[in-house]
């Protein structure tokens, strides 16, 4: 094993075997039940569809690792998308301006969350619930409640393909890869686990807890901003009411992937598996033309079942 490989990799994969198994079973079933699931074009499709949830899930993994939570993801996605779209009218600005403004919006929201949690000493649930309604309100205010349309093709093309691969997927892969390296190999990454595992003890060992948390919320905000930009490019508008309940899907993916909501335990790899599982279920149920009523029931049962299998197997 080279020095670059975090030693946690193998054990994590083993720990997450339950999820991998469920994923394979479902994929196998879908390949048999439908002609279209196991085609290249559909798999690209799945890849494209999971990207936004994937970016959000990786972002919120950082926050969950510190023992926090971020309920504002969906609203901040909408706000960043709207801000990005406002600067993306054709001929207005070079491409980096709308992208930068979208990311900046996300970062600012994230940092504000972080400051309120660390300096204000307010529970993350409340802080980010507040941000959830505030960001939604701001998105509606600055857009006047209407979609911000007329985006330059340069930006909307970001939802297209680069070679055979969708650009959103590339973003997700890049984000996941860097985060994986970061958590496994960087000091700050290690500190994130320490703070989530035992905040007092981390402090006693010289870790600057507020700084670490601020970083986690800020990074999560940055990635949320990125998700907002990618979404705006994908739907070619800044949609003030977009992203409803995205936080739930993202957090679900992270928790399915084995990250503990009380902090200190988890991995990006698990998160990616969780994102895949949710993505495949959503895609598969649509391909099978399952009625949306039953879709809800089936999806709930599969998610709970997968986590149950996973934990049972991890215990034995």
């Amino acid at each position, binding site marked *: 094993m080279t*020095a670059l490989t*975090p*030693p*946690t990799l193998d*054990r994590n994969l083993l720990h997450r075997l339950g999820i991998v198994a469920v994923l394979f079973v479902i994929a196998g079933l879908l390949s048999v039940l439908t002609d279209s699931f196991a085609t290249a074009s559909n798999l690209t499709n799945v890849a494209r569809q999971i990207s936004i949830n994937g970016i959000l899930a990786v972002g919120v993994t950082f926050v969950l690792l510190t023992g926090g939570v971020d309920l504002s993801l969906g609203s901040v996605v909408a706000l960043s998308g709207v801000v990005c779209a406002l600067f993306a009218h054709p001929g207005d600005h070079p491409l980096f301006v709308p992208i930068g403004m979208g990311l900046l919006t996300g970062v600012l929201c994230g940092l504000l969350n972080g400051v309120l949690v660390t300096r204000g000493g307010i529970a993350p649930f409340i802080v980010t619930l507040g941000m959830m309604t505030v960001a939604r309100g701001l998105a509606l205010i600055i857009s006047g409640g209407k979609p911000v349309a007329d985006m330059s093709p340069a930006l909307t093309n970001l939802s297209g393909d680069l070679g055979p691969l969708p650009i959103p997927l590339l973003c997700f892969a890049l984000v996941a890869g860097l985060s994986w390296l970061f958590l496994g*190999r*960087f*000091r*700050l990454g*290690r*500190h994130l*686990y*320490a703070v989530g*595992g*035992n905040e*007092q*003890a*981390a*402090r*006693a*060992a*010289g*870790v*600057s807890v507020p700084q670490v948390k601020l970083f986690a919320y800020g990074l999560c905000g940055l990635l949320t901003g990125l998700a907002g930009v990618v979404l705006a490019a994908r739907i070619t508008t800044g949609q003030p009411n977009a992203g409803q309940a995205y936080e739930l899907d993202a957090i679900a993916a992270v928790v399915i992937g084995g990250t*503990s909501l009380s902090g*200190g*335990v988890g991995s990006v790899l698990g998160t990616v598996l969780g994102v895949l599982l949710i993505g495949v279920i959503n895609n598969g149920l649509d391909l099978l033309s399952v009625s949306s009523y039953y879709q809800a029931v089936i999806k709930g049962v599969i998610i709970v079942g997968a986590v149950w299998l996973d934990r049972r197997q991890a215990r034995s």
Partner: protein
Amino acid sequence: MLRACQLTKTFGGLSVLQEATIDFHPGEVHALMGENGAGKSTLMKMLAGLYPPDGGTIEWRGQPVRFDSPDDALSQGIAMVHQELMPIPDLNVAENLLLGMEPVNALGWVDRAELHRQARSWLKELNTDLDTHQPMRRLSVAQMQVVEIAKALARQADVILMDEPTAALSDHEVAALFKAITTLRRRGVAVVYTTHKMDEVFRVADRISVLRDGKWVGTKAAIEFSPDSLIAHMVGRELTQIFPPVTTTPGEVILEVRALTRAPAFRQISFTLRRGEVLGLAGLMGAGRTEVVSAIGGLAPATSGEICLRGTPTHVTCPADAIAAGIGMVTEDRKGLGIIPALSVEHNLTLAALPSFSRGPIIDAAAERSATQAATTDFAIKASSPHQAIRELSGGNQQKVLLARALLNRPAILILDEPTRGIDIGAKAEIYALIGRLSAQGTAVLLVSSELPEILSLTHRILVLRQGELAAELDPRQTNQEEILRHAMPR
């Protein structure tokens, strides 16, 4: 009355207890002795219904029984004082003490007046007077430990398992506990007792069983053992010298504390610490020793006064400051302020010293691994691998990891708050030797301990704290336990 028959337990393929068979009789204090990780706590936890045995049976009054939960064992009359403190932080002392057996009135409501009355009377048994209305989180570790003991007494069980009940206690409370144990023995209660304090065993135990590496080595009447033969049984070899002689002479002043105050915990504390000096801090439970060293270590800064390092006043507002200033600390509260339970041994070990294992912001895994290997060997840390989660280690081994952590930064000043709490005699000897070595290398050591022999044998000077104030400065060569206690007693 209670019999462990061929009890076996494995954790993740690692066998920690193999076919241990021990009888416990009523009216007898049965000591379980063994090194850290020998399996004492594991055996007790199986008897108390916390872990199901992987093999063997538990016989209770001649019948095999199965305990699926602590509740089953409790209802049979088996109670336990746990090695790890188990406070419910936001319930008050009385509620913690009588948890699960709250007195109820005719309406089925908890009778609060009665609850507090009962709690107070159990605490009185242990010669302790605590406000039973205050939440558990306000208590010091020692006070929590007293509550834990009272909790087990309150069950009025036929068997009481005590897993290192005195680890955090000073002599005063220990004496009270022993009085209580004597009463229990007279009442025909079987007491199972674990400790790493040698003198205690011979004071209370009627019979002694020794465990070594998960195997039962033997059971004999206490009078058949001498301290040395007992140690030899536990360790498997002769341990000749426990305390190394104090040979070094302190150098120049490296730390000076002037009028340090954080009322009401401590007031006007002034002292100096020299290179290579071991300074002992003695006092009764709640005297404020932990609070003073927490102020120096940055955990809970003082509100007034000055800390001078090498002559320059230094602001220590958080532990990171202290570490940067060359102050290392091992806290008294291993669980709360020490370990990160879910992280591996390796990651716990290197946490405070990561900058020295990284290139820029990136951790150098190879350097980290070799440091871990070195520490594991130096401190004889028993872990199945460096990747094992630290929460799976025995208490003593966790403590060793924390000691090793504090030393990785090569601090000029090392603060040790009850460093041998829960550590076996062999490891204690190692730590004592380590303190000697560090002092010889010029490290200044501030040692807080409730074990007076430690303080008396290891230090150059002793400060006695009484109710948050400095009561005396003594020379260990010219004083004794009685004199220290006389200064420490509240007046």
